[in-house]
């Protein structure tokens, strides 16, 4: 079995994001970037399945500018076998990402495609479902547990009401939740070894995918600021404020 895992380079989850003064986007210069957190879970799960003997190969793919390769190198350092970088500059919407991934799926014929359930930059939560749609494959989104069976996966999904379990036939798409597993850290020797693993480079235009944006970003603004609050000295003061000042209890 072959597993393709899509990873995205985003602003690190610990960075306090700032809006650019001209309203064209957010500040990315000199800002720490890293792999989208649930994409780390997707890689980890694929590597674990390989380690269990149920998969033979894990391929990590990223779509983005040259620096996006860092996320593939990181995936290679934690156990992916080889990487693919599809070069595109600028914002690529989930629909275009899914079309690029479809081309790669047609070329590589993976049995499973994993990715994070949501990227923490645009917060779209679309790509996995879109890829499943255009491949006409089943989708198991928001996965917090995956059991690999002979010809199917049993997947536990985190939904608003609690948990849902579905069984999807292979080939399938899985989008991973943060609780799926605990991603491992790359050791220094593995980081060094990862540099020797193959990383294929392609251009989105060579794949015949139109990546032109369908959604115009008109402006990006700071969210409305909350007015500064106060510290209360005691629980009784807090309750009095809630009762008499805020009038919420």
């Amino acid at each position, binding site marked *: 079995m072959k597993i393709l895992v899509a990873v995205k380079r985003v602003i690190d*989850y610990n960075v*306090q*994001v700032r*809006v650019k003064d001209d309203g064209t986007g*957010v500040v990315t210069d000199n800002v720490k970037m890293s792999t989208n957190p*649930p994409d780390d879970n997707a890689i980890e799960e694929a590597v674990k399945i390989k380690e269990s003997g149920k998969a033979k190969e894990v391929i990590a793919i990223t779509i983005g500018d040259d620096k996006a390769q860092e996320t593939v190198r990181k995936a290679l350092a934690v156990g992916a076998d080889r990487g693919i970088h599809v070069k595109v500059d600028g914002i690529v*919407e*989930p*629909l*275009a990402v899914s079309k690029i991934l479809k081309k790669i799926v047609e070329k590589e014929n993976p049995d499973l495609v994993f990715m994070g359930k949501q990227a*923490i930059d*645009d*917060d*779209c939560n*679309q790509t*996995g*479902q*879109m890829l*499943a*749609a*255009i491949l006409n494959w*089943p*989708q198991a*989104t*928001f996965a917090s547990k995956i059991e690999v069976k002979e010809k199917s996966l*049993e997947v536990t999904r*985190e*939904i*608003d009401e*609690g948990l849902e*379990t*579905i*069984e*999807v036939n292979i080939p*399938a798409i899985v989008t991973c939740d*943060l*609780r799926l597993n605990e991603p491992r850290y790359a050791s220094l020797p593995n980081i060094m070894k990862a540099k020797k693993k193959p990383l294929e480079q392609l251009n989105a235009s060579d794949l015949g995918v139109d990546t032109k944006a*369908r*959604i*115009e*970003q*008109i*402006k*990006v*603004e*700071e*969210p409305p600021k*909350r007015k500064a*609050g*106060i*510290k*209360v000295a005691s*629980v009784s003061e*807090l*309750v009095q*404020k*809630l009762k008499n000042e*805020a009038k*919420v*209890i």
Partner: protein
Amino acid sequence: MSVLLIAEHNNSDLRPFTFNAATAASKINENLHVLVLGNKSDSVAKAASEIPLVKKVIHVDNEIFDNFTAENYTSTILKHVDNYSHIVCSANTFGKNLMPRVAALLDTSQVSDIVNVISEDTFLRPIYAGNAFATVKSTDKKKCVTIRPTSFDPAPSTGGSAEIVKSEPGDKFESSKFVKREEIKSDRPELGTARVVISGGRGMQNSDNFKLISAIADKLNAAIGASRAAVDAGYITNDHQVGQTGKVVVPDLYIAVGISGAIQHLAGMKESKVIVAINKDGEAPIFSVADYGLEADLFEALPQFLEELNKLNSIQK
């Protein structure tokens, strides 16, 4: 131009966020139709027809919809979208799972999780965990939009009498199958719509200590929330998680207990009307969004809080 809202329901009732989505959908265009896909779901179609904002209900009743899988929903939705300019549903786990599958097959770039309708093609949506708001304009002919339910008031549920039209399902999808759903039943208000939410974080230390939170929740008729750290640590189940990758809540009162205030948690609660933070670390980032901060050990503060509430003559429910 007209809008098709995909109803979320449990085959007997509409789920509450469908009413919020109806409000948003009717702001896009007043010609609002609702598509109800269910099994033995006549009561749902009837409830949708009674929303005064709704002009028409299309009802497809078939056993393939018993468990609301995105795959079976999608083929039927695609059969019904020809006359609509917009396909809309809530941006909760139901809509997040479903809408991109529909959008991709319509070759539409979906607009996710909108918090305001600026015009028929332009919307406001949070990005980067709500640390920025983007105004975006969709250039696709048919638009697929998901709605952050807590940003729109629920539509009135009675007074309407829209026509209900029966229709037929699309193809059944054979490659996936529903196994089971473990819903957490609770007598408390739903987290997404509760007027008061009290949440615990890593500072709670274990699941047993959440009793301190539930005692206060009982008193305030509040829903119980949690930070991702508390859920990851197994103190409480995932359906309680508030944050960027959990639920977004906008209650009148949000009480954060033992929660430091990571960016991803703030994303889920910082639009709440009044925020209270109880934390023993005075430097915790949660205090930067709190209207009332109490720097205290939660194990002392929570029993006192309950005691003070007990002293009050009346408490809003």
